């Protein structure tokens, strides 16, 4: 049985309380940062992972900004294997100032909620929404970000669809939804496509006609590849060629556009890790230097080299665990407010269990590595050498 005097481990840590606290705090800060950076990278493709396999997206084959004719709706609906179709049109307006960015979509409102079972109304009702021509549904994060409440009127300035009178589009909040999947953004405003169409037709507003994309729900048992090919073939010769993809592939194109940024953020994380590892090694070297005489006394009392080594290693591990734990707790604590802050650019930002596990593992690695070299050195010194050592 290896004897490790645990009290000595604790006493040693408390011998320099300032140093221990500073080390723990800087570890906490670094682990906190690592958690957030990784969450940022992970959130980028959350939409891809949580995409549903029973939905397809029909978009222009040329560009996301080329709209496709509304009349495609009936043709797509007749394709074998298609259960339902719902159009989405990017509205591209802003609330009061351009910096207040959140997404607005004009949708076939009567089909939206049945198409997206992951959208759950927490306030208001679908019937109220459908009954009001200018009604809208907003995400709960959007509601809390700007303090919008049920029954409020939200004035939106249309930059893609300006109103002819120069005024704002006033949408009435008829429902607030939340989402059970990061696939549906909780900071979006949905309103009736019919209202947009009507305003355009009567000349009350201008902007591109037609719709941006169609979301298609497959019938049970329909094979996505076959349905995709059938839809694309319908419009092969124009007027607008379309490209039908799975929801996952649609989300993936946005991830792909982000380019090398995930790699860059990961290297930042590497830098953070390196900096903190060096700092903890430094602390442990200082501790080892001071504990040379103690280790000599321990050995004289009959403790083995291994025990002496373990005393130092345990100190290092305890520091790392305390720091890492604090950092993880802090990251979990602020995760929600950060998700709200950057939700529109990084929907699905969350500190996942995997991230926590990774952070905990990294903390332990730091503790082990930092304790190893100085610990081994102490373990190897013979009694006479260490007793004589000058501090």
């Amino acid at each position, binding site marked *: 049985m290896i004897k490790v005097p645990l009290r000595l481990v604790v006493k040693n840590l408390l011998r320099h309380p300032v*140093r221990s606290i*500073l080390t723990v705090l800087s570890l906490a800060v670094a682990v906190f940062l690592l958690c957030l950076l990784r969450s940022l990278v992970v959130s980028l493709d959350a939409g891809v992972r949580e995409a549903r396999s029973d939905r397809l997206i029909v978009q222009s084959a040329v560009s996301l900004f080329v709209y496709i004719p509304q009349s495609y709706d009936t043709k797509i609906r007749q394709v074998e294997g298609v259960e339902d179709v719902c159009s989405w049109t990017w509205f591209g307006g802003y609330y009061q100032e351009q910096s207040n*960015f959140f997404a607005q979509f004009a949708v076939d409102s009567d089909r939206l909620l049945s198409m997206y079972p992951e959208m759950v109304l927490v306030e208001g009702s679908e019937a109220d929404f459908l009954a009001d021509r200018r009604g809208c549904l907003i995400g709960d994060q959007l509601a809390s970000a700007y303090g919008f409440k049920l029954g409020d009127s939200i004035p939106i300035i249309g930059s893609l669809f300006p109103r002819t009178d120069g005024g704002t589009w006033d949408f009435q909040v008829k429902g607030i939804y939340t989402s059970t999947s990061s696939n549906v953004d909780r900071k979006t405003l949905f309103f009736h496509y019919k209202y947009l169409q009507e305003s355009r037709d009567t000349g009350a507003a201008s902007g591109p006609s037609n719709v941006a994309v169609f979301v298609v729900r497959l019938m049970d048992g329909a094979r996505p590849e076959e349905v995709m090919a059938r839809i694309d073939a319908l419009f092969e010769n124009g007027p607008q060629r379309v490209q039908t993809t799975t929801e996952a592939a649609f989300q993936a194109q946005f*991830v792909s556009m982000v380019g090398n940024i995930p790699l860059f953020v990961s290297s*930042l994380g590497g830098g953070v890790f*390196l900096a903190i590892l060096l700092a903890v090694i430094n602390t442990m070297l200082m501790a080892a230097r001071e504990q040379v005489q103690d280790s000599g006394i321990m050995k004289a009392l009959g403790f083995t080299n291994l025990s002496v080594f373990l005393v130092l290693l345990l100190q290092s591990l305890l520091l790392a665990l305390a720091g890492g734990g604090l950092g993880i707790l802090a990251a979990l604590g602020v995760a929600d407010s950060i998700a709200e802050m950057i939700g529109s650019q990084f929907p699905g930002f969350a500190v996942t269990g995997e991230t926590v596990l990774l952070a905990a593992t990294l903390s332990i690695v730091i503790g082990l590595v930092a304790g190893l070299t100085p610990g081994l050195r102490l373990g190897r010194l013979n009694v006479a050498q260490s007793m004589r050592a000058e501090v």
Partner: protein
Amino acid sequence: MALVPLSYNLRSLLVRRSATLLTVLGIGATVAVVSGVLALQQGFERLFAESGREDLLVVLRKGATDEGGSVITRAQADTLVKSSTEIAVDPNGRPEASLESYLAVRRPKLDGGETNVPIRGVQQATFRIRGERLKIVEGRRFEMGADEVMVGRKLIGRIQDCGLGQVIVFNTTPFRVVGVFDYDGPFSSEIWGDVDRFAEALERKVYNRAILKLAPGVTVEQFSRHLEDDLQLPSDVLTERDFLMGQTRALSNMLLFLGGVLGLIMGIAAIFTATNTMLAALAARTHEIGILLSIGFRPITIFCSFLFEAILLCLLGGLVGCLITLPLHGIETGTINYQTFTEVAFAFQVTPRVLLVAISFSTLLGLLGGAWPAWRAARLAPTVALRRH
């Protein structure tokens, strides 16, 4: 007042080699992280802001936040160019104005995935207005009226079908790549062709913006009023430089924010590290401080000496950080510009400003990290400090 010789600090750092090295490297990594983000931001900002011209105006439909959201009909465009005496004319009497179309098209990347590449339809006048700064690197310009395009240099090697002689299909019309061009600015991530041919192929018979030069003596305000009052064309008129700066604000601010947050959080960790190192130095040199005090050095001198050593330590770290960041200079990368949803390629720029921030940042770390240990050193009583423990 006698100062403690600086060589004393240098030697002290040398004596505690491992602690010095570890601290310097740790602070170096911190500084490198912050200056890496800044170098990315500088590259982005330089690409946009510094390539924009002051003498060139961009006209967008009023309220549009970018080219994609701005629509100018053919009829409006005709009125704009033909009924504005405010627009400068070249020696042959042609107005110095050009109408352009803009669309982000879906293109496959060479390394897999898809991205949005901007295609710009231009008129002959664009070449006159752009002049010498538009360089043909390979091949030739596209012919007006032909189904030909030239591609920006930065698309080569990143986007499929962009090589000389290859064919790019827009909707159902094939276009042949006949040239590669370069222009210092975001244009070198674009594909250019005849505005009318693009309109035909994409069935978008509208323009997205006009670029023009004003006749001598005409101000932007006068021209803007003329458009709104005389021509019933409410527009946003701004210099190309302001326009490009507006296009980058979101991403640029995001990077600055990221750099700031990283700097703040990691700075705190680095300060703690520096404090720890200096406290250990203090503990090891208590005896020496006792000697210094007893031979007449004043506490304030001791304070300065310790603080100087901390700053020196962190400055070395800052230097290491700069050395890590420097090789990034010029490395090209691409990312999405959220404002236009298109991909732009740009290079890390380790500008003097980045280095200056890195050095000031590390000095600040030294000041904050060294203050408390230095203060403790200065407050030691000589008799206590001299006593061997």
